């Protein structure tokens, strides 16, 4: 069976999920996995689906593109390797928080450091807020980033912590790494 990924991005509006899934439903596609989110006013969805035997692929693509035009969505559909990835994603066991003045490259530099250490980022969220104490009139922003990480025993936490500290100094932000505690069975 062939597996396809479909991603769509565009301005959020009511009915957008129904519009995208309608042609899939009509052609008997099975949605295996999906995730959607809204950032600002932008909607984004990615889903994996399997197509039934003998589906009219050309007409499916045509229908989906029609929806894209109607809803002003950028749509991409392509065949992907079937099945889950070989290594299962592990549950995050550390939370990294970063606070400070916004500047370019915060995510990039933090992600590079983590990649060098072989650490998997399992979740990433960012927020910016106007600083309450800002009197410069330059609209300075307070930047907050929260990353969930999966750190294996192979990582030397002391080394990692000191590297993060150095990075925090370099970027003039505060970076903290905290384990997610295990409370057991309650």
């Amino acid at each position, binding site marked *: 069976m062939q597996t396809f990924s479909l991603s769509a991005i565009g301005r959020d509006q009511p009915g957008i999920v129904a519009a995208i899934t309608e042609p899939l439903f009509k052609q008997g596609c099975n949605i295996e996995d999906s995730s959607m989110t809204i950032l600002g006013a932008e909607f984004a969805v990615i889903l994996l689906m399997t197509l039934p035997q003998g589906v009219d692929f050309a007409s499916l693509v045509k229908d989906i593109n029609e929806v894209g035009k109607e809803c002003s969505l950028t749509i991409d559909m392509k065949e992907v390797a079937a099945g889950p990835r070989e290594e299962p994603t592990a549950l995050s*066991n550390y939370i990294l928080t970063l606070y400070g003045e916004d500047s370019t490259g915060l995510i990039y530099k933090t992600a590079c450091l983590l990649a060098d250490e072989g650490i998997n980022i399992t979740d990433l969220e960012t927020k910016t807020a106007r600083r309450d104490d800002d009197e410069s009139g330059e609209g300075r922003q307070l930047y907050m980033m929260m990353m969930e990480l999966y750190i294996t025993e192979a990582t030397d936490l002391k080394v990692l912590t000191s590297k993060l500290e150095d990075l925090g100094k370099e970027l003039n932000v505060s970076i903290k790494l905290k384990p997610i*505690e295990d*409370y057991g*069975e*309650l």
Partner: protein
Amino acid sequence: MPLLKIIKYPDPVLQRVSREVTPLASGISTLIEDLEATMRLHGGVGIAAPQVGVLKRIIIVDVGSDKGGHGLLRLLNPKIIYSSGKRKGREGCLSIPEYRANITRSRKVHIEALTPAGKDITIEAKGFEAVVLQHEIDHLEGILFIDRVTDMKRDLFRREPV
């Protein structure tokens, strides 16, 4: 002390709301003793009456007394009257042994409850103890930790076989 059987998900009893209890009513003190023995046998740090199929608002919590814990707490009709802060931690449940999840809870809670003797008490708990109290009080409302998962992909997973 007879051991009580732990009710396992998806038994619908776990999703029902428990009733308030009157301290010193008949059978309550035996139930409290049995609940505590059952919790200890399973090596747990908390248990709620609905977990043994009794829909009464009784919880037992014991995270010890170091790290600011209150030691053994036997609480009737517990209520959260104040909560603040957020922290994420990994939880399991004796009633759902197959799963673990990362759950966001309040960092600090104030609880009002009755002791088994019928005395009013207020408890200020933080950290681990606060999390256990929130988990057990959820049981009295028929809420399970899996109901608190907001992102299944990120936060819920099958427990590795031990």
